[in-house]
């Protein structure tokens, strides 16, 4: 597809235009970058660096999400018969998305492939990504299979250059967003060459042959499972859910019914494999009753079970868990330790 050269005023014009028929969202500054917020077009500023604390998954896998509704008035026609909720069809555009977060949407769509709720949200959401110029020291997207210049999962990928942005239009949906600019803003051959060089300079994705996903897939499951270092992680871990809830690719959930004053809903909400209740049977038996088992499960799921089932790691290398873990459990160390097992 096309590559456009936009200056800052072009971007402003576009945002104003998009805003007419769509909702705009972007990272918001609050206690550092806390999360995502609906914005007015003029409010948008490209985040200086890094990603917000909360991940992009909240747009596709909201906390909580109503799956079904039911009437809880015994007299009603169809009382206690759940029916599907109505989804909003209004399109939304998420701005300022980093390559790691954009990639997380693709990774999550693997387990959610047949999920109508996830799919409905994906269909109505456009991602305008901004490639990374300054990775943080906790970033490791290249190692996890991506790259700071990666465009996977974006509809438009913006790269900051002298005098504005090079906008790589990647999808039909993305093309729809800029159609009136397509002819007169096309980037010059030199600019296209510049973008190509920037991409090549960025450390390439290691998703293929030599990447951790491929190496770990080939290792014996029980060798990794029985590795000695898990106990050390469990020693530090307090078994909270900060890592799982901030992680863009942790997607475990629980389902529960809530009934209030005649109205009922069946919701799914984020759950965490760190919590003892996660696996506890009604009988009281708990297959993962020990902290070490739960810590291990989180990493084994991301680094071994998920790749075996779907191919890539269930990790985009955004570094959120590393930055926010209260006891500094570092997934990069876990990856290194797992890779070092013969």
């Amino acid at each position: 597809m096309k590559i456009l050269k936009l200056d800052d005023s072009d971007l402003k014009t576009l945002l104003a235009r998009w805003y007419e028929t769509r909702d705009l969202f972007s990272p918001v500054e609050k206690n550092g970058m806390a999360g995502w917020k609906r914005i007015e077009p003029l409010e948008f500023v490209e985040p200086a660096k890094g990603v917000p604390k909360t991940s992009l998954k909240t747009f596709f896998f909201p906390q909580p999400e109503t799956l079904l509704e039911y009437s809880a008035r015994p007299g009603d026609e169809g009382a206690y018969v759940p029916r599907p909720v109505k989804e909003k069809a209004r399109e939304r555009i998420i701005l300022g998305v980093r390559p790691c977060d954009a990639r997380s949407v693709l990774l999550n769509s693997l387990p959610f492939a047949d999920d109508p709720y996830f799919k409905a949200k994906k269909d109505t959401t456009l991602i305008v990504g901004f490639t990374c110029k300054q990775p943080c020291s906790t970033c490791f997207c290249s190692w996890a299979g991506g790259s700071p210049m990666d465009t996977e999962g974006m509809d438009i990928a913006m790269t900051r250059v002298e005098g504005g942005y090079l906008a790589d239009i990647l999808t039909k949906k993305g093309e729809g967003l800029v159609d009136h600019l397509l002819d007169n803003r096309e980037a010059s051959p030199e600019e296209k060459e510049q973008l190509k060089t920037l991409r090549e300079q960025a450390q390439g994705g290691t998703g293929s042959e030599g990447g951790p996903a491929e190496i770990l897939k080939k290792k014996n499951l029980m060798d990794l499972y029985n590795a000695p270092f898990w106990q050390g992680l469990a020693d530090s871990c307090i078994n909270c859910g900060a890592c799982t809830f901030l992680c863009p690719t942790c997607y475990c959930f629980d389902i529960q019914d809530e009934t209030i004053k005649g109205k009922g809903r069946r919701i799914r909400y984020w759950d965490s494999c760190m919590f003892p209740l996660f696996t506890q049977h009604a009988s009281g038996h708990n297959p993962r009753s020990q902290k070490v088992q739960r810590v291990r499960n989180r990493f084994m799921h991301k680094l071994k079970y998920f790749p075996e089932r779907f191919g890539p790691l269930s990790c985009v290398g955004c570094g959120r868990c590393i930055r926010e873990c209260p006891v500094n459990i570092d997934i990069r160390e876990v990856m290194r330790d797992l890779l070092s097992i013969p």
Partner: protein
Amino acid sequence: METLFSQATEAIKREARALLESGEVAAFLGFAKGSIPTVTRPFVARSPEETDKLIWNGLCVMNLANYLPGLLKSLEPARRPGEPPPEGPLPKVGVIATGCWSRNMVIQIQENQLIRERLVILGIDSPGMIDRRKLESLAGGKEIQAIEEAEKKVVISGKGFRLETARQEVLRDNCLTCTHPSPVILDKKIGPTMPERHVHEPFARIEEIERMDADSRWAWFQKEIECCIRCYACRNACPLCYCPTCFVDDSHPQWVGKSVDPVDTAIFHILRAYHCAGRCTDCGACESACPMGIKMRLFTRKLQKDCLELFASEPGLDINSPLPLTTYGPEDPERFIINGSKQQGTQGGK
């Protein structure tokens, strides 16, 4: 440069190594360096060699008492539920304790979660611990790549910046109002004794909130917990929270919904704080653990203030004085009881 911290680190390493080498303890609980400069890692050394990893600095903010019951249990020989422990002494753990952590250990002993004899406590006076969020806001969005700490100042640096600040400016809020930096139970003292601290208006922020009207207080409360993600890091970092099934996990009845509904989140924070009433030592682990920067310590601080004012109680200072909610006094204040004071005269004989 020899600092307070490097001296303490060396002393901790030395003592821990000796304890493990002599076999007096089966494990030593302390801190190791983290992979990022703003966070340290609670760490269990199980061999003399591993004690080389131990460190001590102002970012050791997790309350180690939190780990003790679980760690001690994991060191006991496996046995079936209900089976009595084996004859003879059970394995011991060595641990570092500052004022608040040691008070939490006292409370755990009072609440039968710990056995004093199984602990070897290296007491260390807390110099006041650093709030990583304050450092981050000082850095103004730039990434902190190194922290240098001295007795009175802290220097942070990263790509293209180097900032120096008074230590006092970046201390955690709880450390700024702390009046008990010295451990109350210990087996060996490490480092110098800190001078006694007098805090002017220790409950200033609480009083400020109390002066607001109900609407403003509600608005403040809502705002404070708005970005809670219900990860329970505050609960799990807390040495007071050891219920086998937390009230948030009760299903029958379900006291609190599990998602991020504002009412459920509010009830979670109210009840979490309330369960710490009369037990909280203001160690600040909850706030330090919170990934979202919520100041939930203010809720427990209010309870702390009330315990002090109503029952003259400060928990964990004395192993022989009961926790305030496990006891009562005939003359406990009851102004809040609607017909309380009116009836009080008639109660004399009883």
